[in-house]
């Protein structure tokens, strides 16, 4: 599977992280409690003043699609692509499987909200409200302390800030928002855009293709290793917002990049929609890791298509943490197109009260000696519902292919739900295929064991849950691992009487 964290500094941080997680330091525990109290139920639920959002109109039709394209001054081919997407969206039925979409009405959302006139060159150039939001999220701080080598901040439909460290830019690494890429790197974009996820791929992918705005375009030249992650931060602010970012990552031969995205939104009584597409091309012997820590508020439909095309000897790794949202449907996929390509998906879904996390992975083995690993973990509590939905397909001729699937579900109480829908389609004899699924409950005996050693019930529960997510959280950059643990603990608040 994936090797350890790419940057050496993380070793030091990791030991700190382990110490933190042991929570042996009273002071630390006290501080955490204070933070948790400040956070309340959902810690990112504030919203900014909102002239652009209020002015934007709801709903989508062909005219809206044309207006978006015209506003962006796009070339004809992109408009054509959008219109293909729109037609596919209209024609395709709503999925009859997965999360409950009966309350989903495409005309309720705002499709294009431009919060600022143009992208800011520095954080200071942003309106105070928006800048404060990112300060509170800690993004400029992470950039300043060089925890990330590039930052993209998307607010509503637009990437309002995008930067990359100079030395990377000098090596030819491109990290811009996708709108800018269409203007400045038209040949590269046109060559790859929509090749991994075609406009007609699925209903919500089609909607993204029609209405896309923002997202990241990343190109890493041959042999270049981007050692520190690129960070993207997606923020929805206005009610009924539809955010449709479009990300395209191309890792040329022998290169490496780690892209990390985080997502939050305010709490509103009406629903918002996040329907992104992420397309990744991993060229020969390159390696890409794509990490998501999704913490949308519980009024966001999160319907995302993520797919990578993996060439000879290349490695693709999805690390996917779904903590928030009202309903998520997301199955990061890898097309293992050439020999010795390999891929892994490590995912965690946390379904709290009123949430439905329908997540999983797809691994399509098209060539010999390709290998894939899926580790999917889910936690359900408070009546929440989580599902693993996965596909492993190995075609005739992909001899020596191997796949290993492990799904573990943890139920915290008696009225939550977990389902597993593993699909396996193997057309070749010479393969190795393993599937293992477990559903466990936080047991009385586990709680008693920890408590009999002096650990209070609430902390004992948190230890068990942290232990359960540990195989995923250890794959995350340190700040995100801490964040994930904190989120999981927040979600667990009140789960013990």
């Amino acid at each position, binding site marked *: 599977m994936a090797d350890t964290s790419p940057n050496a500094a993380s070793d030091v941080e990791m030991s700190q992280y*382990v110490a933190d*997680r*042991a*929570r*042996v*330091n*009273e002071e630390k525990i006290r501080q955490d409690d204070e933070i948790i109290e400040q956070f309340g139920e959902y810690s990112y639920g504030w919203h900014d003043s909102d002239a652009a959002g209020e002015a934007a109109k709801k709903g989508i039709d062909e005219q809206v699609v044309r207006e978006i394209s015209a506003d962006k001054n796009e070339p004809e081919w992109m408009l054509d692509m959008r219109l293909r997407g729109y037609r596919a969206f209209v024609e395709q039925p709503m999925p009859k499987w997965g999360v409950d979409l009966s309350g989903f009405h495409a005309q309720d959302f705002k499709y294009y909200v431009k919060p600022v006139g143009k992208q800011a060159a520095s954080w200071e150039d942003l309106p105070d409200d928006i800048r404060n939001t990112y300060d509170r999220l800690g993004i400029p701080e992470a950039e300043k302390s060089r925890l990330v080598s590039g930052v993209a901040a998307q607010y509503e439909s637009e990437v309002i800030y995008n930067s990359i460290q100079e030395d990377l830019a000098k090596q030819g690494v491109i990290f811009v928002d996708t709108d800018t890429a269409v203007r400045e790197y038209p040949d590269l974009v046109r060559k790859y855009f929509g090749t991994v996820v075609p406009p007609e791929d699925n209903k919500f992918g089609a909607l993204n293709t029609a209405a896309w705005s923002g997202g990241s375009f990343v190109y890493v030249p041959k042999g270049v290793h981007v050692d520190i992650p690129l960070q993207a931060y997606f923020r929805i602010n206005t009610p009924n917002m539809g955010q449709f970012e479009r990300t395209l990552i191309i890792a040329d031969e022998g290169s490496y990049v780690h892209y990390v995205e985080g997502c939050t939104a305010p709490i509103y009584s009406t629903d918002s929609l996040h329907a992104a597409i992420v397309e990744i091309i991993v060229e020969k012997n390159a390696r890409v890791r794509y990490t998501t820590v999704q913490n949308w508020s519980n009024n966001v439909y999160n319907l995302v298509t993520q797919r990578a095309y993996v060439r000879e000897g290349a490695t693709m790794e999805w690390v996917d943490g779904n903590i928030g949202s009202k309903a998520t449907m997301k199955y990061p996929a890898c097309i293992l197109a050439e020999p010795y390509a390999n891929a892994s998906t490590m995912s965690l879904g946390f379904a709290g009260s009123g949430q439905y996390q329908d997540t999983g992975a797809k691994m399509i083995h098209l060539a010999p000696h390709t290998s894939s690993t899926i580790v999917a973990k889910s936690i359900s509590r408070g009546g929440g519902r989580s599902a693993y939905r996965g596909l492993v397909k190995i075609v005739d001729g992909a001899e020596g292919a191997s796949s290993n699937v492990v799904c573990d579900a943890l139920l915290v109480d008696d009225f939550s739900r977990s389902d597993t829908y593993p699909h396996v389609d193997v057309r070749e004899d010479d393969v190795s295929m393993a599937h293992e699924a477990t559903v466990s409950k936080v*047991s*009385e*005996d*586990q709680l*008693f*064991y*920890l*408590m*009999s*050693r*002096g*650990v*209070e*019930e609430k*902390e*004992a529960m948190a*230890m*068990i849950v*942290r*232990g*359960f*997510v*540990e*195989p995923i959280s250890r794959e995350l950059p340190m700040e995100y691992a801490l964040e994930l643990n904190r989120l999981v603990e927040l979600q667990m608040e009140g789960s013990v009487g």
Partner: protein
Amino acid sequence: MSTLEIKNLYASVETKEGRKQILRGVNLTVNSGEIHAIMGPNGSGKSTLAYTLAGHPKYEVDSGQALLDGEDLLLMTPDERAKAGLFLAMQYPVEVPGVSMTNFLRTAVTEVSGEAPAIRTWTKELTAAMKQLKMDPKFATRSVNEGFSGGEKKRAEVLQLEMLKPKFAVLDETDSGLDVDALRIVSEGVNRAKAANDFGVLMVTHYTRILKYIKPDIVHVFADGHFVKTGGPELADELEERGYDEYLPEGSDSESALA
């Protein structure tokens, strides 16, 4: 000098057939430094006594007290009992995946002692204790009890006993499933911990063989939910020879035999 005083303890468990009273009037006093062997036939309720003292939610106290230096353990949550100085070495310790032994032990020691151990002395103490129990240093980084063999689990329990330094230790069938070498190593660990901290021991066991390594001061026979006989170490020899037959209820109906 501490005292654990169990007075007239009655406790029940919910079974498929309904509520069943297992402990029926248990009385016992244990002082610091004393080793009490609690012996009895299978199903007599001796493990129930151990779990009831530690506060397992499966067992419900009907009446009685368990006073540790005057404070009633039975009114406390399991973690409060641990902090009050009670330790239970379990027969079947559970696995807690993803939580390393080191983190778990440090958390436990911090909770029980009320302060975080200094990193330097902590590591030294833990390493030394593990070495004496002949535990591979790798155990410190493994998940709590996960994939441990029966013998490894018992060693890990005794390691916790050594680190947590309780006032009273209840050992539930600590000898079960151990070969001769492991039994000796585990027993030596218990003796070492007792020598260092002078705690009182309640050793629950079916067999007499552990008594060759951990010498009891007092031996009790437990049958049908309470103590039926108490004596010195010679009582263990008697049990070794004659078994528990005379303490078993007549016939197959054990419910009403010894009221």
